[in-house]
């Protein structure tokens, strides 16, 4: 890694102020993606601002019909105590045990890897993302590959998930890397049915036709005959776009069955 400076601020305002002081700053949460990228010199920040211990970003709490998860909650903490079974299962399926002990919800969302699991949970449940300056709806947050609605220096503080009536997540992992070749999160909340797909496109996306079908009848059989256009899907040495399109249909059915 190239040399960099390291700051561990005491509060959110101090961290955001440090980010605004020039250079190429990056927030550091668990570092499980960022440090790897820095080793490969895909990222070379001039200063890392370590926000993993900020009290405002810690903790998981129930607030009425909403589950509020601090951005620095680790995948392991969410797997052990998320309060939404499908979200706990999703969190426990990320990476491996050691990665889950360091990696965080906020880091995963800000990174927005095309195969990120948390993106599927956030979009599938229609969660809202509270930052240091505003609240961003899940539908407006994920913009593209590694691209989000976060402004420079904007920090995710916590995520509010509406408690679903039922929800499920199913994915196919690449056996070597563990990343989702495709993953589908299905949820029924007070706002209706949502279906979110990760791993298959530039970033997480919804399937309106699947949502409409499941609104009529919430069962895997209701998805029979539905197809996904493969035009915008990822194609790489692991899976063709056509295969991913097929997987989405299969995984949506499994996610419904798991709900």
């Amino acid at each position: 890694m190239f040399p960099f400076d390291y700051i561990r601020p005491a509060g959110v305002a101090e961290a955001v102020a440090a980010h605004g002081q020039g250079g190429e700053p990056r927030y550091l949460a668990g570092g499980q993606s960022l440090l790897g990228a820095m080793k490969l010199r895909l990222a070379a920040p001039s200063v890392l601002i370590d926000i993993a211990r900020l009290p405002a970003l810690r903790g998981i709490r129930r607030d009425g019909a909403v589950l509020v998860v601090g951005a620095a909650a680790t995948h392991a903490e969410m797997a052990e105590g998320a309060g939404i079974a499908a979200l706990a299962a999703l969190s426990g399926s990320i990476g491996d045990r050691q990665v889950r002990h360091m990696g965080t919800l906020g880091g995963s969302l800000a990174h927005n890897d095309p195969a990120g699991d948390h993106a599927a949970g956030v979009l599938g449940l229609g969660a809202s993302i509270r930052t240091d300056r505003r609240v961003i709806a899940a539908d407006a947050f994920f913009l593209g590959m590694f691209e989000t609605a976060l402004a420079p220096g904007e920090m995710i503080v916590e995520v509010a998930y509406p408690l679903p009536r039922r929800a499920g997540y199913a994915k196919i992992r690449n056996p070597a890397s563990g990343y989702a070749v495709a993953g589908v999160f299905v949820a029924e909340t007070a706002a209706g049915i949502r279906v979110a797909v990760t791993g298959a496109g530039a970033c997480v996306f919804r399937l309106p036709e699947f949502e409409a079908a499941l609104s009529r009848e919430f069962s895997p059989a209701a998805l029979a005959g539905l197809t996904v256009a493969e035009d915008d899907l990822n194609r790489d040495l692991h899976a063709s776009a056509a295969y991913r399109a097929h997987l989405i249909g299969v995984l949506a059915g499994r996610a419904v069955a798991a709900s």
Partner: protein
Amino acid sequence: MIATGNRPGKPIDHSRDAHHLKEIGSGYGGYMRISLQVNGRQVDAEIEPRLLLVTPLREHLGLTGSHVGCDTGQCGACTVHLDGRAVKSCLVLAAQADGRSVLTIEGVADGATLHPVQQAFRDRHALQCGFCTPGMVMTALDLVAHLDRPDEEAIRDGLSGNLCRCTGYRPIIDAVADGIRARMGDGG
């Protein structure tokens, strides 16, 4: 606020690249002081922020049991405990361990007496070349402490961040199950 000497915008001195770990009192800007517990012992050091946790463990403290196998966070040979939970020390900055407690394989046995999980690895012959073993044992200790029963699927999933390229996983899984049973008090 914890911070290194260089502020954003100030040029970083690349001339130190070859020697990036110094004892306290080096006086370099860009170094930071960290203080942590390693195997129960207080350690204070002045480090470059880019130092990965595994580096001071091996090169400064001589704890060479934590192996750098892949250096890309995939093989798990560098696994140590940070505040009681298994992490990959090649994917954690030493700065992130500041103020925290680290346990390496060297701190597991009680003198000449192996920890029950180490003993289970020995009894099951859960190693061949031994390179992955320290990391395997550290992850196994985490599993033994946190799994509520010796469920094979959970053990396999729990070990998925540790790669072994010679003996295979069967005896390792058996050793972890032995460890869980021993913790539960119904023997190995």
